[in-house]
Each structure stands twice: as structure tokens, then as C-alpha cells.
């Protein structure tokens, strides 16, 4: 068989076995590497479980920890075994125990047969790569990383700082240009053997063993030296979250995976029974030559990253509570605040509603109650018209109202007689607030009132003072 499968396994052995048998059934030889961290009894059980298959090999075990050399050493050992024991193999596909073939194996054979000299390995220079976990891109190759990022973080960070301080820079052997990419490749025997048998291999190994996350760059870099034809993409579908960890696929991703143009997908949740059943047993039915649409998959995971890192603007909830200045927008949509208009125009609110189609409220911050539009006592989201409830947290009240009514523009009246303390500045600073003021118009209300003139005069002075302070705030923000 011309395609050999390497499988790096450390857990969920039953699934690894299930997938291995699937490959073996189509005639692919398989070389396993089992992480040395796995307990011996589990390892031996797995070996004996696979013992009925002819073209299966196990190699010397290495300790595989994320970001360290062990993974590369494991891959090298398995690759050497594969090339040595199976001379017919022309393409070697590197997979893990959590990978699942999406397309019939024959399709993969046909595809690779048509491209006998092509290496499929994601390989991009550091300048072009958008992801950097831990903020280190070029530095991966210029500094030394003897410490484990996961287990010895303090030492890891301290040594990095130290090297930066003294301006230490490693020499990259033979001036090779570092490249990075997904470690799940499919390489030709020619390229793979050239890398493994390179007379400079010891130097390269020494260098890369102290590079950070070497499995993302070892083969990506060295294959550039020998490959006749590189297609810089992985045949394995793998999506990453905002922390650089691979996303898991579950049963509810079945339809999505059918849209992939990849041959294999990872990582699959070991208990996603439907996925394993669909892709391993009902192969013909599963793929049905569906039109690949990988963009859809990309979108879903890109949205997930966005949701985690930027969230929904203007929303405050149990798992999103941004500190001041980090809200990325205090409210979620534009709204309009009118000061003095309803005092000057008799039918302002209905007129505004008719003219703009917006929802027009009265004084939302009136002292006695919230004057929702149309005299309602409850508003979207079940917001109550109780002034005490509103005043308990005025900003929450306002942001909730704007959130609950998204899609419909909100307008409300404001004036110096309202409870604007604690909310005045928030509205003033909010770029979503369109504020329009007719200064002094509140006096019309007093003018028409039937109160004692002495009271009126006192009230007028008080309101003027409030509005004046308010205008200063508005001006300072505007300037």
C-alpha cells in the first residue's frame, strides 16, 4: 500500500483501535507511538489488542509533553520505522489517536496517487503566521527554551526575560529559514527520508530541541530544504481556540464535518459515538460527495473566538462584566435623548414616534416612576417602572433597556427635574447617545404650573443650576 499511517496515541485507546482498524482494512500499514506517560498496563493491553493485525508496528516510547521535543522525537522514531519496514509506502500521513477519517480511504489513495511528489505540510514563515500563543513568534527560534511551559512556567518566563535582558540570540544552523505550521502533515518518502538522513541532522536536532513548540516548526522548516513540491496546507482539519488549543468535534458537528474538504479531522471527543459510527461505518453515506464548504466551519470557530475575546458589546451578564474602560462600548446600540423638547412642543412624543418610527418614552428617570412609552408599566425584558428598582442600579437599567430593544431605536426625555445623578456622566460619555438640548425649556413647565410664585422661583433656580452643571459636562465631553 502506498500510504502509511503514523498514529501518536496517549489516551482513548478504544477509539484509536477503532480508527486504526479502519485504516488497516484498506491496507494501510500503521506505526504506533504510545506516550511514555501512559501506564504500562494500558500500553500492553493496547499492544495485544492490535496484535492480530499484520502491518502494525510499535516504536520506542518518548515522553510527550505539549511544547517540548518529545513529540518530534516520537515522530522521527515512527517515521524511521515506517520507511524501513514498509518499502512500498510513498506517502506517510501523521495522525493522532483523536483523529477521524472523514472521507473514504480510497479517496485519499486516489488523491495522493495523482500527486506522487507533493508534500502536504503547512509551512509559513513566522512573519506570515497570525497565531502566537504566549506572545512569542520569532523569539521561538532565537532564544533557548529548556523549561516546560506547562509545568515550570515561572522558570520558563524568568529565563526568557533573562535572555532578552542580556540580548542573547541563538545562531540558527546553516542559515535555514524557520517556518511554522500544523504538525499534522502528509509527506512523501523522498522528503521525509531526506530529513531523517540529513548529515546535518544532529545539528538540527540539537537546535530544535531547545526551540519552543518544536513540533510546529521542525518538519515545516526542514521540508522546505528537500521538497520538490510543497502544498502549504494540512490534509487534516483542525481548528484552534483563542488559547491555541484544538477545538473538539462532537456529534452535533456531523453535518458540519461533511462540508469539510479535508480527509481527516481532529480532535474528536472520544464519546462522540455518532461521529465515529457515521464516518467509520457508513462511509459512502456519510460523505455522499457533498460540496465542500470549509468556509462555514471556519466561520463558526472564528465566531467562537470572537465571542470569547470581544464578547457582545453593551451586554452585561454573569460571565461578561468588563472593568471600566474595557467595555468596548457601554451600550449596544444608538439611542436619542431629548432635553426640553417635550416642554416646548405639546405633542412632541407622538410626533417623534410617528416621524421616526422609533420607540419614544417619556422621562425614563422621572422621580416617581419610569415613564415608559404609551404609559406601559413594564417594558421589554420585563423591566419594571418602579423608580426604586431603576435607581438601585441606573446604568444596568439603561443598558438593559437598550439591549432588550435592539433593532428598535429608543428615544427618551430628560430634564433637570429627573434623577440624573449617577447616570448623567454615563450617558454623556456614551458615543451611542445622541443628546439634543433646548436649554431653559424646562421653565415652560413652571410657567404653566399653578404653584405659588415663591416656590416656582426657588424651583427655577434649582433647575437652572442642575442644567447648567449638566451643560458643562456635555460641553467638556464634546470639546
Amino acid at each position, binding site marked *: 500500500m502506498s500510504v502509511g499511517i503514523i498514529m501518536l496515541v496517549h489516551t482513548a485507546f478504544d477509539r484509536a483501535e477503532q480508527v486504526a482498524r479502519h485504516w488497516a482494512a484498506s491496507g494501510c500499514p500503521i506505526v504506533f507511538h504510545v506516550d511514555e506517560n501512559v501506564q504500562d498496563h494500558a500500553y500492553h493491553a493496547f499492544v495485544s489488542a492490535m496484535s492480530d493485525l499484520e502491518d502494525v508496528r510499535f516504536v520506542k516510547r518518548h515522553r510527550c509533553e505539549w511544547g517540548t521535543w518529545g513529540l518530534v522525537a516520537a515522530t522521527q522514531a515512527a517515521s524511521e520505522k515506517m520507511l524501513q519496514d514498509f518499502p512500498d509506502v510513498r506517502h506517510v500521513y501523521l495522525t493522532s489517536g483523536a483523529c477521524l477519517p472523514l472521507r473514504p480511504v480510497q479517496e485519499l489513495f486516489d488523491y495522493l496517487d495523482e500527486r506522487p511528489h507533493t508534500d502536504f505540510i503547512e509551512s509559513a514563515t513566522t512573519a506570515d503566521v497570525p497565531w502566537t500563543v504566549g506572545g512569542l513568534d520569532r523569539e521561538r527560534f532565537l532564544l533557548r527554551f529548556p523549561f516546560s511551559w506547562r509545568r515550570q512556567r515561572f522558570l520558563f518566563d524568568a529565563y526568557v526575560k533573562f535572555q532578552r535582558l542580556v540580548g542573547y540570540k541563538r545562531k540558527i544552523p546553516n542559515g535555514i529559514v524557520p517556518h511554522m505550521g500544523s504538525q499534522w502533515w502528509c509527506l512523501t518518502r523522498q522528503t521525509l527520508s531526506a530529513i531523517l538522513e540529513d548529515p546535518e541532522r544532529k545539528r538540527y536536532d540539537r537546535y530544535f530541541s531547545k526551540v519552543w513548540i518544536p513540533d510546529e516548526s521542525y518538519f515545516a522548516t526542514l521540508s522546505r530544504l528537500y521538497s520538490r513540491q510543497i502544498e502549504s496546507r494540512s490534509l487534516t482539519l483542525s481548528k484552534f481556540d483563542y488559547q491555541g488549543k484544538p477545538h473538539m468535534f462532537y456529534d452535533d458537528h456531523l453535518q458540519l464535518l461533511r462540508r469539510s474538504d479535508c480527509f481527516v479531522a481532529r480532535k474528536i471527543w472520544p464519546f462522540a459515538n455518532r461521529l465515529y459510527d457515521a464516518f467509520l461505518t457508513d462511509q459512502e453515506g456519510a460523505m455522499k460527495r457533498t460540496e465542500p464548504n470549509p468556509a462555514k466551519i471556519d466561520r463558526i470557530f472564528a465566531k467562537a473566538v470572537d465571542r470569547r475575546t470581544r464578547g457582545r458589546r453593551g451586554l452585561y451578564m454573569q460571565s461578561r462584566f468588563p472593568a471600566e474602560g474595557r467595555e468596548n462600548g457601554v451600550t449596544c446600540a444608538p439611542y*436619542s435623548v431629548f432635553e*426640553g*423638547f417635550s*416642554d*416646548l*412642543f*405639546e*405633542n*412632541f412624543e407622538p*410626533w*417623534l414616534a410617528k*416621524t*421616526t418610527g*422609533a420607540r419614544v418614552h417619556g422621562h425614563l428617570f422621572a422621580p416617581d416612576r419610569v415613564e415608559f412609552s404609551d404609559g406601559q408599566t413594564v417594558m421589554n425584558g420585563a423591566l419594571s417602572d418602579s423608580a426604586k428598582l431603576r435607581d438601585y442600579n441606573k446604568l444596568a437599567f439603561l443598558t438593559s433597556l437598550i439591549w432588550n430593544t435592539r433593532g428598535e*431605536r429608543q*428615544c427618551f426625555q430628560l430634564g433637570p427635574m429627573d434623577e440624573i445623578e449617577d447616570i448623567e456622566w454615563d450617558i454623556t460619555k456614551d*458615543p451611542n*447617545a*445622541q*443628546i*439634543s*438640548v*433646548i*436649554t*431653559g*425649556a424646562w*421653565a*415652560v413647565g*413652571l*410657567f*404653566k404650573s399653578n404653584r405659588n*410664585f*415663591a416656590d*416656582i*422661583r426657588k424651583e*427655577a*433656580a434649582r433647575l*437652572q443650576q442642575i*442644567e*447648567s452643571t449638566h*451643560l458643562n459636562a*456635555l460641553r467638556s*465631553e*464634546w470639546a
Partner: protein
Amino acid sequence: MAEFIEAPMEPLQTIIDEIGKTRRKALAEAPKLTDLTGFPQFLQSLKNQGMHPYLMGDFAIDAGMPESQEPKPKPYLIK
């Protein structure tokens, strides 16, 4: 307020346009201005009582109509 009353349509149009964003047609009807007869006298009474009302603008008493002389705070439009 005074200056606004002189020419209310333009600022109203601008505000409405901004809310609508796409709608640029002229306002069909204006909102109804409340009856302000006696308002200038009211302001004067406040002055007589020792207050200094200034935010409303200038309302000349005898004419009964608003009169703007110095520029007074105009309606604010943030953005």
C-alpha cells in the same frame, strides 16, 4: 430656547435625519409649539424676584415674541 423657537425646523430636521440615517425627505409636519403668551413676563417676574434666568435666551417683553441678540446655547447634537 429662544433661538430655537425662531427657527425650529432645521435643527429638528437634522436630529430626525440622524435617527433615520437613510431618510432625507423634508419633515411633513412640525410638532405643535405650546402657547407661550406671557412667557416673557414670567421670566421678568423671576428676574424681579432676584433670580437670573439665562438659559432660556432673550425674550423681549413688549413684543411678546422671542428675540435673539447674542448667541445663546444652541441645541446640542453630539455627532
